[in-house]
């Protein structure tokens, strides 16, 4: 059963210090000296900010680049290092992404063991958003608040956070007090504000409305510069490359994030390529998110986080694509 507490905002940093002192590794949104908010290891509680980070927590459970194994003197040595950690200050669009990664990486015939290790060792402390972010459209999908899949979920209610607890693992009486009916109502109102502030997109049946044969793909293809930012920033993108590197007398097999917007993603030996142009690569990206994944898993491979919109240097916008195929203009 879920329990509900609250914590005073004044006590948040002290609570973080307490967790750090307990020996937990903690990752969360940190403000850098240049003013950007990056999801990374929290060394000093003062650096923590309750803001959505640019990159999100995906790389903690699914690193940009990691060693699968080392090969030395004819032996394969599995790379297994991992730690128990807290992801503190995640957003719902990010953790919903984890749930989608779980479906692909853990629920098929074969499991991605490396992902599973990191995923199952990560305790989630989610911060549900109470304000619409600039590019987000999460209310088209799951909304700003998680229903499950966390240890604690914080919701801003003014001077305090309401704290939903799926378990008591991180509850410390010193910092948490009982929440009143009023606090719970306030949290609900704040969450509802996001629904009011955000535009909800006409996503229904998009998989039936979207078309291959449409000028939009060439139009967008003319702009795309194959930077891959849309994929790398996406909490639901999981595609990876595998390659070997030699360092001294050791060979490392590496896996690294890949991007379906890159020419080499689908290129076969001899420069055969089923996706020769930008248009066909953009079709792949949007069809995977809006059609293929829906057909295979019953939901769209997007949590409305808005990062691909924010980070695309040429303003290719998934919201525009959804609206366009639902009868809108481009």
């Amino acid at each position: 059963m879920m329990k509900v507490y609250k914590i005073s905002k004044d006590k948040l940093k002290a609570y973080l210090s307490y967790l750090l002192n307990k020996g937990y590794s903690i990752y969360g949104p940190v403000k850098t000296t240049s003013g950007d908010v990056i999801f990374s290891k929290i060394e000093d509680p003062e650096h923590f900010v309750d803001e959505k980070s640019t990159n999100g927590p995906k790389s903690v459970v699914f690193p940009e680049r990691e060693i699968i194994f080392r090969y030395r003197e004819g032996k394969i040595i599995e790379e297994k290092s991992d730690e128990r950690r807290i992801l503190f200050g995640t957003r719902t669009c990010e953790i919903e992404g984890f749930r989608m990664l779980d479906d692909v990486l853990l629920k098929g015939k074969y499991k991605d063991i490396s992902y599973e290790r990191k995923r199952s060792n990560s305790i989630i402390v989610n911060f549900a958003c109470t304000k619409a972010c600039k590019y987000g459209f999460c209310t088209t999908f799951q909304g700003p608040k998680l229903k499950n899949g966390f240890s604690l979920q914080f919701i801003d209610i003014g001077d305090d956070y309401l704290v939903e607890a799926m378990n008591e693992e991180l509850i410390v009486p010193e910092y948490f007090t009982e929440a009143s009916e009023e606090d719970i109502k306030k949290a609900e109102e704040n969450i509802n504000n996001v629904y009011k502030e955000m535009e909800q997109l006409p996503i229904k049946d998009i998989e039936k409305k979207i078309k291959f044969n449409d000028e939009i793909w060439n139009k967008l293809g003319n702009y795309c510069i194959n930077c891959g930012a849309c994929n790398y920033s996406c909490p639901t993108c999981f595609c990876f490359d595998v390659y070997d590197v030699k360092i001294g007398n050791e060979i490392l097999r590496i896996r690294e994030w890949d991007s379906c917007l890159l020419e080499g993603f689908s290129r076969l030996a001899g420069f055969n390529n089923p996706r020769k142009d930008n248009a066909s690569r953009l079709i792949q990206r949007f069809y995977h998110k809006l059609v293929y994944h829906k057909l295979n898993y019953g939901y769209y491979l997007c949590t409305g986080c808005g990062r691909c919109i924010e980070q695309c240097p040429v303003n290719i916008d998934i919201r525009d694509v959804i609206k366009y195929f639902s009868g809108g203009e481009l």
Partner: protein
Amino acid sequence: MMQVYTNEMLPKTVRILKICDETPDTKTFILENITKRIPKPGQFYMISVFGVGEFPVSFGSANENNLLITVKKVGQGTGALFELGENDIVGLRGPYGNGFPIEEFTGKNIVLIGGGIGIPPLRSVMEYISQHRNEFGYVQLLYGARSPKDIVYKDKLLKDWPKIIDVKLTVDVPDETWKGHVGVVTTLFDQIKNLDSIFLIVGPEIMMRYSVLELKKRGVKESQIYLSLERKMKCGIGICGHCNLGRFYVCKDGPVFRYDIIANERELFYG
């Protein structure tokens, strides 16, 4: 019972037992089958040349001790494999993919159609058919190579298989020695004996496209046709996202597809 998962991305190290030349750019490698598993016809493995990379390869023949693969040198990984010798070590994981639903073909006539390096999966089917010959009806194999010197598995095609099935060969470009048929593989289609057969096609996408077209012209139903597809593969187990054809992943939902299921996929028969 709880299923115990291992890290499927870790290959096993296996020894190359024997290497033979097939054609100027194609070699057959016999590897240790250390897992002792007998794969299903049409399945594939991921083979590693450590330090260079990993790529998918079909098996042509298998028993408890040996796995036979045949590789055409086309790039970095295949090139590096060609540098290795007998007793050298490669990495291997698999078998992966669905393979041909060969048991479902019991009692039926079968036509195998292959082009170039598309022959190893058909050899694995032939191995099954030769062990269960009387479970199948009339069996034909139509194989096309670029030139006579590009024919892979000459011994099988010219000597062993004609004893149990009807084998027809063709080359695009003949040389002085060639007395057989000349033309692309579809020019053999007038010699297909039974149009009610099951058709298994493996080869370059363009060859499969024209084969399907020609078969359909002759009234063959889409559901009688099976293709083994090739897409870029990095994991072989359905998690790296590279090999998709629409909603399907060729590595886990394929590589073998009944044609009617994928007939409308936009990226089928590219190029």
